[in-house]
């Protein structure tokens, strides 16, 4: 299960911690890792305060050797690949601890890390992720949760629109021969604005296929026009199952309930404020 955000400080780690807490309450041992660096007290780029990742006994974690907390000690199980912060190690939490988590930088290495965490433990794997790096999960049965909030818009309407746009891209349907047109256009790389304009110059009954949803870099109205004009699909789909909202941003504080309801309406997905305990 991977949590991605529509913007920095959209509430990813808060959502991640909420999932971990639910698992703990239910007695389910989880495994955790991160795409990028998370769990540090403040954001490395903009110094915004960030929640640290709390890990309960029995939790499996993949993190760089340099981020392994010195106390309480973790049980080191084995080593993985390299990351920007050093060799990734797999460890098990023995006593409750809080730590930073970072994972490998590449999609392939992240896939290998997730697979190894699955092999080492029986429970779900939670990944604090990034929206442009979810490709390793495409084509599998992993669930994606989209975190959004005031960090991605100054009004409820803007946040909801940003969430809807992200969900529209991430929920690109997979291949379905029964529903596809005879003409299938394969795009090897990214579907960018230039590709979109070329396609829209000659609208027709055709299926346009990209490798996975992260290859679609057009958004907003252009993406909507493209989806209206073509049957847009991907080889390996993602499974986006829910959204979470954070009403607090650096420049705005939004009404929590209104935000949850607006995002649920805009995305058509179950939406939660895991701090205010609101669902829609």
């Amino acid at each position, binding site marked *: 299960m991977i949590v991605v955000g529509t913007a920095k400080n959209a509430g990813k780690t808060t959502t991640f911690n909420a999932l971990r807490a639910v698992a703990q309450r239910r007695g389910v041992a989880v495994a955790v890792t991160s795409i990028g660096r998370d769990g540090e007290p403040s954001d490395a780029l903009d110094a915004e305060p960030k929640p640290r990742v*709390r890990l309960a006994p029995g939790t499996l974690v993949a993190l760089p050797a340099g981020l*392994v907390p*010195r106390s309480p000690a973790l049980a*080191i199980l084995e*080593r993985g690949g390299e990351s920007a912060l050093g060799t990734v190690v797999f460890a098990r939490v023995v006593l409750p601890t809080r730590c930073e988590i970072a994972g490998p930088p590449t999609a392939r290495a992240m896939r290998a890390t997730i697979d190894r965490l699955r092999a080492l433990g029986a429970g779900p794997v939670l990944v604090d992720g990034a929206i442009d790096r979810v490709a390793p999960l495409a084509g599998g049965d992993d669930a994606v949760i989209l975190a959004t909030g005031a960090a991605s818009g100054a009004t409820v309407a803007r946040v909801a629109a940003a969430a809807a746009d992200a969900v529209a891209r991430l929920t690109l349907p997979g291949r379905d021969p029964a529903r596809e047109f005879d003409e299938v256009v394969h795009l090897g790389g990214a579907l960018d604005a230039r590709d979109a304009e070329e396609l829209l110059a000659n609208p027709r009954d055709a299926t346009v296929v990209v490798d996975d949803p992260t290859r679609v870099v057009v958004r907003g109205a252009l993406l909507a026009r493209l989806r209206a004009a073509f049957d847009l699909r991907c080889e390996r789909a993602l499974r986006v199952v829910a959204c979470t909202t954070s009403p607090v941003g650096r420049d705005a504080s939004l009404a929590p309930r209104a935000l949850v309801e607006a995002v649920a309406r805009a995305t058509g997905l179950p939406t939660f404020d895991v*701090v205010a305990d609101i669902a829609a």
Partner: protein
Amino acid sequence: MNADATSAARIGLDWLRTAVAPVGAFGRRHDDARAPYGPGDEARAHDEIAGVVALAAQLDRDGVPRARAALRAVPEPTPIVARARVGDPLSDVDFYELGRFVDAVAAVARAWDAAGGDTARRPPALDALRTLLAPGREGAGFYLADAFAPGLRAARETLAAEETAFETRREAIAARVRDAIGIDPAGDEFVVLRDVYDGPLPDDVLVVRETPTYRAAALRVVAPARDAALARLADEEEAARRALAEQVAREADAVAAATDVLGALDRTLARVAFAQRWGGCVPSFGGTQLAFTEATFAPLADALAARGRRYTPVTLALDGVAVLTGPNMGGKSAALATAGFVCACAALGVPPPARAAALPLLGAVTWIGGEGPEDCARLLSSYAAEVVRARETLAAATPRALVLVDEFARTTGPREGRALLVAFVEALRARGAFALVATHFDGVARAAGVAHLQIAGLREHALNALDANDLDAALDAINAAMDYRVVAAHDGEAPSDALALARLLGLGDDVVARARALHDAR
């Protein structure tokens, strides 16, 4: 043995270095610390090569790659141990890596035994280090277990109890808050929506931030005992790590000795694998000859094998300087390269892939002929490049140098070119260097007063019977018809078989016929 980039490439020295490169960090370090054998190192070179040849016969052929794979998997403990020696703190990941090292060394020892290796070269067991780390090792992992220090268990039990007490206290406060405002204060932070509750918050609630629609809050749970337990555990764990690191430091010599053994074994097994692949002999050193019987220029043999072709081993005896003539495509360049390659093997402690060899240990090998990368960088023409290399070679030539000359002066006028070559060969002879000089010029050996060797060449009448439809078939046919042996030459015109080969390689019959007429008329 010095060889510039061009020479190293031509004699297969680069290929050889790659072929016998160690697979692990210790082996690479061991190799880097050993200079190639040169003049004066004959006894050491002999001992190493003899050892490799003996091991190649003794060790199981499947076991050697397994032992090398085990060597490749050994992690590097040296920086960790060095930090321990100077008193730097070690981490649990460091102890885990040391445990991996101990296990990996044991795996190498098992693989070595399975390959049929002797006890003298067997990596040490590192029992003391293994015992040190044992309390923390479950399987391949590591945990700073209670057994490492007397205070650890108590500190952990205290912390666990304080965590439970903290949760109990927090839950009690949460229940009071729930009763007071009707909101469940779950998680580190919780939100109090103003449209749900806008009254005063209990004293146990700390407001983190406020907006017109909600207040974000956290429970004020003071837990000095838990904080103290955390601090005590941190102290106990650090003390345990310090004590363990001090004990690791005392094993530094054993670890260094083990890495030395691994490094030497890695170097040796690389050579054994080479010898098992290519065969090899123990050369005799110290004579005045550079001679070998049925030697294989392995880089070429490897390339030919990849194309399904067979390499013909070369036999050669060189007393000082010799001129080598023979037909095009007869293997003159390969013979030169083989001489250099065999000497390179000896310099690196590798059994030369030959049935027998009597070799000098050389100070330098130089290849002259054609342009190398250095010549291109100097913006020299082919002729200028050759002359400059010849000048530099003569300036440095000694009796412990091998000079391989491949059709020197072929890009200039033949009369002046031949004269220049004769003079160059005389100069090499005067300096006492070993030299093998391939050329199509006639009468060079006799004019310079040196031995004349030749490639035996196309077997009699064989070429007339050959016909081929494409290049591959032509090369196969030439390969079958060519006698690649190096033999003593008769005086007279150096054979080239150039016209017959041109016909076989597809140059038009009319062109070849015209060329033959012109040649015969001369």
